[in-house]
């Protein structure tokens, strides 16, 4: 084994983002760097490639020993910018988190890969294009020849990330640094990309430095794990050791916050996350009474127009005949991958989108056709929590104003009582009254999401639609916010429509689960039945793709389906095949689609 050793301490301007870090990546080894936002893991990767200088930082001290292809050991901390430029590509390559923005949108992907090849291998255009095609085949992109001439926007997120990997690998680097390469992807696509990276690494024998915050992903891919916090390494060890016997309390907290799917297999009711040093959580039985929200045959379609005359070219069938009930105190988790229509369902209910068909009944009243009083009822009784706590609060208004807004809008209180209520709400979500004077940018992501929840509670709603409400948060914060939401549910009996793609959170919070695929609910039922006994092939595929935080339970190759999720865009008149839901168990319904000939 030819050694590759990286050892350095780096500093970013006024702050030391990474302090005295020692790290080795050997050829053919996968080292995962784990930590939450602000732990310095991305800074580390930028320091190795020296891109840190473009980000306004510099390496304050330390050395980065790198053994190149020629066997020479270089100190990357002191190389000249010009020689670093030559190293980036053939020796060191990077894959970034956001596949949408790391490709040039106006160049065909073939040209982009070929550019990297020509630059570093000094070959002609035709030869570079041939190499680009081979690389695309290597990252298992179907019909590689045809894909070469397409633009990035014509590809899905998973495909783009494969193109990025193909580009990074086109010069057969000795070290590949992947910074959260799968964070923006759906679970089934994430499974595909991770598996691809692992097999390519074996083929090319390169070192892989994998930066992530997801312990499940770490377990799937890493040989060794480095846990970072506030710029320092807190623990290092083999993946097995870290998962079996974590030594540092922070590692333990990080692992505890990652819910192992299946840990509640024998529990019928939702159970909050364990809190370190807290009492062990009790199952919550909160469902009471008859449905507060009844949705029947909801249909939302978007017209797609093309050309200068706006000819109707097709329709996106975002929501197709979706029906469900929600009872007070109940949490219905709506799961599925991007584009399956789960957000559109939520948005259609509160009329951020206009549904074409179906009925929505709220507390027994029909709110499908809105007039003055029903519109008020709808906006007061149903509240929405958005995914991005950074974007959903007006940056120019104080937190207190934002929380008071629903109270003022619905004239629930007046005068000084409004302010008192705002303070009470802030305390209910675990903040203090002083936070009312703050602006959103002064708060952390978790605090902001708490503010959003306080705001949602302000109008005393009976239903809260949480659209990926915890997806943007770090794992430990995510557990806290989920626990908060469950606590509020047991106190106020509010019902949640919990839209998410995170199966681990679903297991904790949901009473029932609805699985959406291409705009339809394909399976709905009690959480325990759906997750332990999935009947629809898509539900099975979704559950199989969830990374398990146990390095011994990696996917076997054949379990992962390599196909893409088909598009909900259809030609006019081409209606999707709606299968009725059939009861397969108590309260457990499945659509009998003919997928893969299983039914």
């Amino acid at each position, binding site marked *: 084994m030819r050694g590759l050793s990286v050892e350095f301490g780096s500093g970013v301007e*006024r702050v030391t983002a990474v302090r005295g870090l020692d790290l080795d990546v050997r050829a053919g080894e996968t080292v995962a760097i784990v930590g939450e936002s602000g732990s310095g893991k*991305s800074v580390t990767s*930028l320091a190795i490639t020296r891109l840190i200088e473009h980000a306004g930082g510099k390496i304050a001290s330390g050395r980065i020993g790198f053994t190149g292809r020629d066997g020479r050991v270089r100190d990357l901390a002191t190389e000249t910018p010009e020689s670093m430029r030559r190293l980036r590509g053939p020796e060191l390559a990077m894959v970034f988190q956001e596949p949408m923005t790391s490709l040039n949108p106006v160049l065909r992907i073939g040209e982009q890969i070929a550019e990297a090849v020509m630059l570093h291998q000094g070959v002609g255009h035709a030869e570079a294009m041939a190499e680009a095609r081979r690389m695309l085949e290597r990252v298992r992109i179907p019909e590689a020849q045809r894909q070469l001439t397409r633009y990035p926007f014509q590809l899905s997120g998973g495909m783009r990330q494969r193109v990025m990997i193909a580009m990074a690998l086109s010069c057969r680097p000795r070290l590949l640094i992947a910074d959260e390469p799968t964070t923006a992807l759906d679970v089934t696509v994430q499974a595909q990309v991770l598996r691809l990276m692992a097999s390519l690494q074996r083929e090319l024998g390169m070192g892989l430095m994998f930066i992530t915050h997801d312990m499940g992903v770490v377990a799937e891919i890493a040989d060794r794990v480095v846990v970072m916090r506030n710029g320092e390494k807190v623990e290092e060890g083999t993946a097995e050791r870290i998962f079996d016997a974590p030594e540092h309390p922070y590692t333990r907290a990080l692992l505890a916050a990652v819910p192992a799917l299946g840990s509640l297999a024998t529990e019928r009711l939702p159970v909050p996350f364990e809190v370190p040093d807290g009492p062990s959580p009790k199952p919550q039985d909160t469902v009471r009474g008859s449905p507060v929200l009844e949705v029947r045959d909801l249909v939302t379609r978007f017209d797609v127009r093309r050309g200068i005359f706006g000819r109707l070219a097709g329709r996106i069938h975002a929501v197709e005949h979706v029906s469900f009930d929600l009872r007070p105190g109940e949490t219905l988790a709506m799961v599925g991958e991007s584009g399956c229509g789960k957000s559109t369902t939520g948005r259609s209910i509160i009329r951020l989108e206009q549904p074409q068909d179906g009925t929505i009944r709220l507390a027994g009243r029909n709110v499908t056709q809105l007039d003055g009083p029903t519109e008020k009822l*709808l906006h007061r009784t149903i509240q929405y929590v958005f995914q991005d706590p950074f974007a959903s609060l*007006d940056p120019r*208004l104080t937190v207190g104003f934002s929380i008071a807004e*629903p109270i003022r809008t619905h004239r629930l209180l007046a005068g000084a009582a409004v302010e008192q209520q705002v303070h009470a709400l802030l305390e209910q979500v675990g903040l203090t009254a002083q936070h009312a004077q703050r602006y959103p940018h002064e708060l952390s992501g978790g605090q902001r999401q708490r503010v959003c929840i306080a705001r949602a509670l302000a109008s005393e709603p009976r239903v809260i639609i949480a659209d990926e409400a915890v997806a943007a948060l770090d794992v430990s914060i995510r557990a806290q916010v989920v626990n908060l939401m469950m606590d509020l549910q047991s106190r106020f009996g509010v019902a949640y429509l919990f839209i998410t793609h995170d199966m681990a959170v679903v297991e904790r919070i949901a009473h029932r689960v609805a699985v959406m695929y291409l705009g339809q609910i394909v399976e709905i039922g009690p959480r325990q039945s759906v997750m332990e006994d999935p009947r629809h092939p898509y539900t099975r595929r979704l559950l199989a793709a969830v990374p398990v935080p146990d390095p011994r339970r990696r996917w076997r190759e054949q379990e992962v389906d390599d196909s893409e999720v088909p598009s909900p865009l259809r030609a006019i008149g081409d209606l999707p095949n709606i299968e009725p839901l059939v009861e397969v168990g108590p309260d457990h319904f499945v659509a009998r689609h003919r997928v893969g000939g299983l039914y």
Partner: protein
Amino acid sequence: MSEMAIGTVRIRSPLGEFWRRFTRRRVALFAGMVILFLILAAILAPWIAPYDATTPDYANVLSGPSFTHLAGTDVFGRDIFSRIIWGGRVSLTVGFVSVALGCIAGMVLGLVSGFAGGFLDSLIMRFCDVLLAFPGILLAIAVVAVLGPGISNVVYAIAVFSMPVFARLVRGSTLALKQTVYVQAARSIGVRKLPLILYHILPGTLPGVIVYLSLRIGTSILTAAALSFIGLGAQPPSPEWGAMLSDGRSYLGVADHLTVFPGIAIFVTVLAFNLLGDGLRDALDQKLR
């Protein structure tokens, strides 16, 4: 790259943040002080102007700059320095009032247009397109021709041709803000249209408006001077920089100070407003943050 932001502790209101960024820009800060100085001079004109601006003094006709008359005297023997100070009142008032009127009208149109969309949007925008199709000065001349010459009509004329620019600017940001999650969040709460526009959309359009406002005041002062120069604006004997230029035109080569000093006044004022506008844009631009 959230890791990059660890060190920048920002416990400031949006206004405080803007002020911190603005005061870092020395040139813009200096321009702002120049403008403040000009405004003060205009306000204090009756007390600081050494001579009356309109009383002729036939004993001192066309005398050059001296200690008694800092910028010399004009063809009627009036002190040019005093006329420039008094003229600042006219020019600055025209600049501020006309742009303020155009800006308010344009903002209302832009907000309505962007928020309502549909037919109303098309109607307002086509109206603005028509106004923008005229060269600005020509449009102002046309308005003054209809209303008759005089400084207040110049104000209306400039307001009319400032309006469509603001309408377009505000419509653009309204459309963008309408799509933001926080506006959608407010709508999902059931916030009514007027509070939604006043609290969530209007403040978001202000940065662009403020920048354009300062750039536009400079242009308007220039336009007002041009209209006065061709005799459509300030009527004699009221002192106005453009009108003074026009008066001095016949004595170019004989008494250059008649045109040089009002010219410098116009130049410095317009430049100061432009520099201030650039600085404000740098300090307010979201993308540079």
